[in-house]
């Protein structure tokens, strides 16, 4: 590799997208290599299952391949791809279940309120690792809203739009999801 090649500035995602839309396979491959980890990480967080996340990552890039010509550079490519990934996962959830199953029933009381012990030494450790474990056990509806809001940083009005629900429902689902996670983390700590 020559010095000139080493110093060659990296092409922007937008330039690669334009080339890929014109049929340049190498440009599409470069986009895949740049972004597949980000897409896989997001699908894994939303789906909680590595095999399903891998399949979904493929689906997202197939979708990207078909729709790359629609990217006009009005937003960051990563933002556009992120949204496409979220939509693809939500579509998958909708296909798998009825809408009522996508959200945890409002009338249900799935969250047992576990009060604090008041003794910090008896508090379970709530960190990234315990949260990841608990997240895998969370019902799909709760996990979806929790991941979109608390992990990915979407606002309630955006989540409401994506899921076709009221903003208040998104807030309520998020709160129940957090309480359920807390309960799961405490149960795991108590079983040790």
């Amino acid at each position, binding site marked *: 590799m020559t010095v000139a090649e080493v110093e060659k500035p990296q092409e922007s995602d937008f330039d690669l997208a334009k080339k890929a839309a014109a049929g340049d396979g190498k440009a599409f*491959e470069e986009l*895949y*290599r740049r972004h*597949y*980890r*980000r897409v*896989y*990480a997001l699908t*894994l*967080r939303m789906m909680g299952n*590595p095999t399903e996340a*891998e399949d979904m*990552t*493929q689906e997202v*890039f*197939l979708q990207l*391949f*078909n729709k790359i010509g629609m990217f006009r550079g009005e937003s960051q490519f990563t933002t556009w791809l992120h949204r496409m990934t979220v939509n693809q996962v939500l579509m998958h959830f909708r296909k798998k279940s009825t809408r009522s199953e996508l959200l945890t029933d409002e009338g249900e009381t799935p969250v047992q*309120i576990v*009060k*604090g*012990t*008041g003794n910090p030494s008896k*508090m379970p450790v*709530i*960190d*990234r690792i*315990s*949260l*990841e474990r608990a*997240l895998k056990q969370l019902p799909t509806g709760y996990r979806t809203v*929790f991941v979109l809001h*608390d*992990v*990915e*940083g979407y606002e309630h009005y955006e989540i409401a739009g994506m899921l076709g629900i009221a903003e208040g429902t998104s*807030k309520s689902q*998020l*709160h129940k999801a*957090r*309480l359920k*996670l*807390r309960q799961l*983390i405490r149960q795991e700590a108590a079983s040790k």
Partner: protein
Amino acid sequence: MDCARSIELLSEYSAGSLGEDDSIFVMMHLSGCVDCNGVLQDLKLIVQAAAALRSENGIAYPDEEVLWQRLSARRIVH
């Protein structure tokens, strides 16, 4: 009874999005309730831990090349 109502409002209290009446109610309740304070602290820790999950570190990624080959094969079929 007050604890149940307080706990129901804790996420929004923490986000600062409660109306004035509810906010004062929770604040007053928390000033005398160790249990609800414990729940609030846990919820804050969960929100903090969730933000840390956004990082793409610590994930066992599928093999880049294998995934690309599978994707390429499916693109051809499509």
